[in-house]
């Protein structure tokens, strides 16, 4: 059953230098219990598209879409009040910097309890009980004492666990995790990702994992969307993506993984930089950096073509890439 | 050596074109704020007014027209028609206000120059030497700050005697802590940066590091503070003038003008209203300019 349907989502920011299109024509389909990973570099628009879904963008952002439906509700025309009823309850989001995402003035218990009070109307005793349950669930020891702790007394990993507890407090149908482990120590990263995947299984919720770490994608995702410069360029099942990447960008990303270059002298890189506001190429946005680019690539922007469970935005996709090494 | 001269000329040329580039960039951001530009224009106007007072003032500010005491503002060419009216002694308000620009600008300028020069030296010395030098300087500044500015200025003028010069000195002393603190804190922030270490490694001496390497990078907040202090100095000078401790009559300082005519404020309100309006407009213009300066110099706001 389709939980989330997005068609042709675009986000434009008003800046001094004119309008900047951060997200360009994104399509998304998520069912219950899906685990989707959105991959891309910084500036690919992966975070902005999810923030647009949540309604968390600043006033300078102009969000347009053909369709944006969550569990039957039309998110495009919904009123702010209606939106606030589902945000934090049915859809939740956790962010990259857990240390600064918690309010330094209030205790952990207070901040988790707020969601419970707002959406579920629990009384103080029930809230306390539920908070302790949640902290146990996310693996925080000595939960009852922790309720009285202030955010600055927690480590990065603990803060992120608290954020996760807050996000799942009302048993959401969809959890969006925006680079949840990037700002954490390497040893903690794996723990947090594992926690998210476990919770997703236990609670039967859909999880969207935004990341730039292909290793995480390989281990956790079922579906993968690759984004570049605000556009979706490829979508595939995870195994297929890693075995037979069809878009040159995906191909180059995978090549750049150290694990895949053990037999080489130098690490492959992708030359050039992601286009910003002022230097958007004509035609395919990746063409200036693409090693397989041909003449027609910079004439027109390729459209997104879907076949079955996968999609691709390329005039000359890679066929039969030999990934057997 | 020819290489040296060519090199240094090239560097010199690059420096001056970089300066021009910085100025252009600065003007771009500054002029984004129309109000800041208006403020600047107004300030330029006031400066011109001060410079050309002898020419543009319709009357001599000290001449008393005994037949035209306390005349309301009237236009026209009759004998007792004065654009801003006359004061208790029959002097032309407009001319007195125009000449007053000189006193206010001088007061503001003096205060800023004194505060910048002394404040920067103290701030840099405190920031560079640290230790007990730092502690002593900062405690002195804290002491000055613990007394409200006007009160401190009053006490100082009580010691030094009333008059515009003493008022300026007193006001400068009360503003000094702000400049010292600001210099010291940006100095300390900058001095832990790597370009300073690079300078030291290259063999730069103490003096050079303090004033040539680090100081220019601390100037932005100081410039903003200087602008704000300019406007506040005009206000405080007027306040002291109003209390009788600043510029003494018959000097046409705006605050003194208000004090002189206070007894007639109900019967001849123009004598009090116009000087105050002059103060307000001058201070407003400088504050608008200062806001624009702050926005233009603040790196956080810059959009590339």
């Amino acid at each position, binding site marked *: 059953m389709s939980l989330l349907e997005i068609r042709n989502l675009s986000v434009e920011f008003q800046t001094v230098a004119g309008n900047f299109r951060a997200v360009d024509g994104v399509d998304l389909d998520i069912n219950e219990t899906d685990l989707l990973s959105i991959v891309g570099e910084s500036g690919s628009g992966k975070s902005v598209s999810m923030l647009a879904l949540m309604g*968390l963008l600043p006033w300078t952002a102009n969000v347009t879409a053909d369709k944006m439906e969550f569990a039957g509700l039309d998110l495009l025309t919904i009123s702010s009040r209606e939106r*606030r009823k589902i945000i934090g309850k049915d859809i939740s989001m956790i962010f990259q910097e857990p240390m600064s995402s918690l309010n*330094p003035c209030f205790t952990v218990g207070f901040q988790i309890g707020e969601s419970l009070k707002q959406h579920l109307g629990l009384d103080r005793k029930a809230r306390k009980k539920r908070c302790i349950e949640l902290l146990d669930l996310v693996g925080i020891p000595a939960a009852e004492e922790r309720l009285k702790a202030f955010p600055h007394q927690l480590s990065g990993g603990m803060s992120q666990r608290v954020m996760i507890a807050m996000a799942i407090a009302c048993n959401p149908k969809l959890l969006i995790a925006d680079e949840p482990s990037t700002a954490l120590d390497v040893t903690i990263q794996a723990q947090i990702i594992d926690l998210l995947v476990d919770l997703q299984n236990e609670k039967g919720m859909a999880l969207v994992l935004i990341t730039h770490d292909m290793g995480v994608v390989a281990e956790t995702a079922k579906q993968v969307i690759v984004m570049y410069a605000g556009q979706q360029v490829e979508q595939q099942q995870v195994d297929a993506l890693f075995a037979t990447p069809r878009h040159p960008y995906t191909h180059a990303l995978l090549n750049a993984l150290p694990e895949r270059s053990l037999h080489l002298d130098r690490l492959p890189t992708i030359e050039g930089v992601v286009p910003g506001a002022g230097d958007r190429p004509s035609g395919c946005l990746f063409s200036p950096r693409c090693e397989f680019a041909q003449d027609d690539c910079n004439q027109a922007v390729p459209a997104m073509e879907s076949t079955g469970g996968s999609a691709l935005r390329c005039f000359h996709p890679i066929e039969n890439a030999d990934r057997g090494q | 050596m020819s290489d040296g001269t060519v090199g240094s000329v090239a560097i010199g040329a690059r420096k001056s074109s970089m300066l021009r580039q910085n100025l252009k960039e600065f003007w771009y951001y500054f002029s984004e704020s129309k109000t800041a530009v208006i403020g600047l224009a107004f300030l330029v106007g006031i400066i011109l007014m001060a410079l050309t007072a002898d020419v543009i003032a319709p009357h001599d500010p000290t001449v008393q027209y005994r037949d035209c005491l306390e005349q309301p503002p009237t236009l026209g060419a009759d004998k007792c028609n004065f654009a801003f009216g006359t004061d208790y002694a029959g002097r032309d308000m407009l001319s007195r206000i125009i000449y007053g620009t000189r006193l206010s600008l001088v007061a503001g300028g003096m205060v800023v120059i004194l505060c910048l020069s002394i404040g920067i030296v103290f701030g840099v010395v405190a920031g560079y030497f640290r230790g007990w030098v730092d502690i002593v300087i900062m405690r002195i500044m804290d002491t000055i700050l*613990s007394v409200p500015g006007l009160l401190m200025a*009053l006490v100082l003028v009580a010691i030094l005697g009333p008059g515009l010069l003493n008022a300026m000195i007193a006001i400068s002393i009360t503003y000094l802590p702000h400049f010292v603190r600001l210099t010291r804190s940006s100095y300390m922030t900058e001095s832990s940066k790597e370009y300073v270490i690079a300078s030291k490694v290259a063999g730069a001496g103490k003096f050079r590091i303090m004033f040539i390497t680090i100081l220019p990078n601390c100037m932005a907040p100081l410039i903003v503070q200087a602008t704000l202090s300019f406007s506040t100095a005009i206000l405080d000078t007027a306040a002291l003038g109003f209390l009788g401790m600043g510029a003494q009559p018959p000097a046409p300082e705006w605050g003194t003008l208000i004090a002189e005519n206070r007894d007639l404020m*109900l019967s001849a309100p123009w004598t009090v209203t116009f000087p105050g309006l002059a103060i307000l407009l001058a201070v*407003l213009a400088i504050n608008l300019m200062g806001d624009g300066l702050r926005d233009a110099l603040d790196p956080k706001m810059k959009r590339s």
Partner: protein
Amino acid sequence: MFVFVLNRIALLIPIFFGVTLVSFGFIRMLPGDPVAALAGERDMTPERHAEMMAKLGLDKPAWQQYLDYVWNLLHGDFGTSVLTNRPILDEFMELFPATIELGVTAMALAVIIGVPIGIFAAVKRGTIFDQGIMGLSLVGYSMPIFWWGLLLIILFSGVWGLTPISGRISFLYDVPTVTGFLLIDALLSGEEGAFASAMHHMILPTIVLGTIPLAIIARQTRSAMLEVLSEDYVRTARAKGLSPLRVYGLHALRNAMITVITVIGLQVGTLMAGAILTETIFSWPGIGKWIIFSVFSRDYYAVQGGLVLIAMIIMAVNLIVDLLYGLINPRILHTSS
């Protein structure tokens, strides 16, 4: 918490000495003969001079005089007024409540109006409300306060006759002093119309004194809020689906409060300076007017004593502000050094 308080008090000690040094030195720095200045007599005979010098303690070495001075201060002896021959502390305490009353109402006005409009301007950033509020606030603190006062008197008292020109209460009423706060005393006295008269007299001075703090508080609240609004935890609060009132009024404001309280604390000094001018204009019988009078009448002990007292009061207020910080943002309590 206790350590925090001790810490803050310890920092004040050097300032205390600094201020006492300044006020002590003030008399020594006066032009002319300090003995003549303090004794209030001129052309004294050498014997009289020596007599006064001994009486005033001016024959002892300077450092000893200073220590005596500080010792006296700590025992509440701030010297005696040359004019009235009464202890300075007594004179100060008599007049202080009038200044407090005016200052508190002015500050209340500034905070009650300034903070909300600052928040409003931040939330409605870029709109005409924001620009209008900021424009007005700019005009507000660019004005000379004494001119503003005179202008209001001209309009409201002179032209329209709506408010009294000066004083704390109409001379028709004789309210016995209980607390020194006329509003309270008027209520206590039960005299009909006394309270109303006191309130009536308070309107213009409060507006005049409160204008500049209001403008500054509005501005600084707005900029503090703007900074906080771009923080991650505000995004988290919004992501939880909390109402805007809660997001801005609780989550954001709590963090902005540090800056706002700092600003309010800083305004106390401005209020004192403003009080000097406001009391002069409205003939308000408070500390400000007293200090001016003392300066003009060469009552140097009064000026010296007033300086120290005012500085001490401001230090106390700053201490309270510091303590409030710790309460509002616990991070400061735990990490303060």
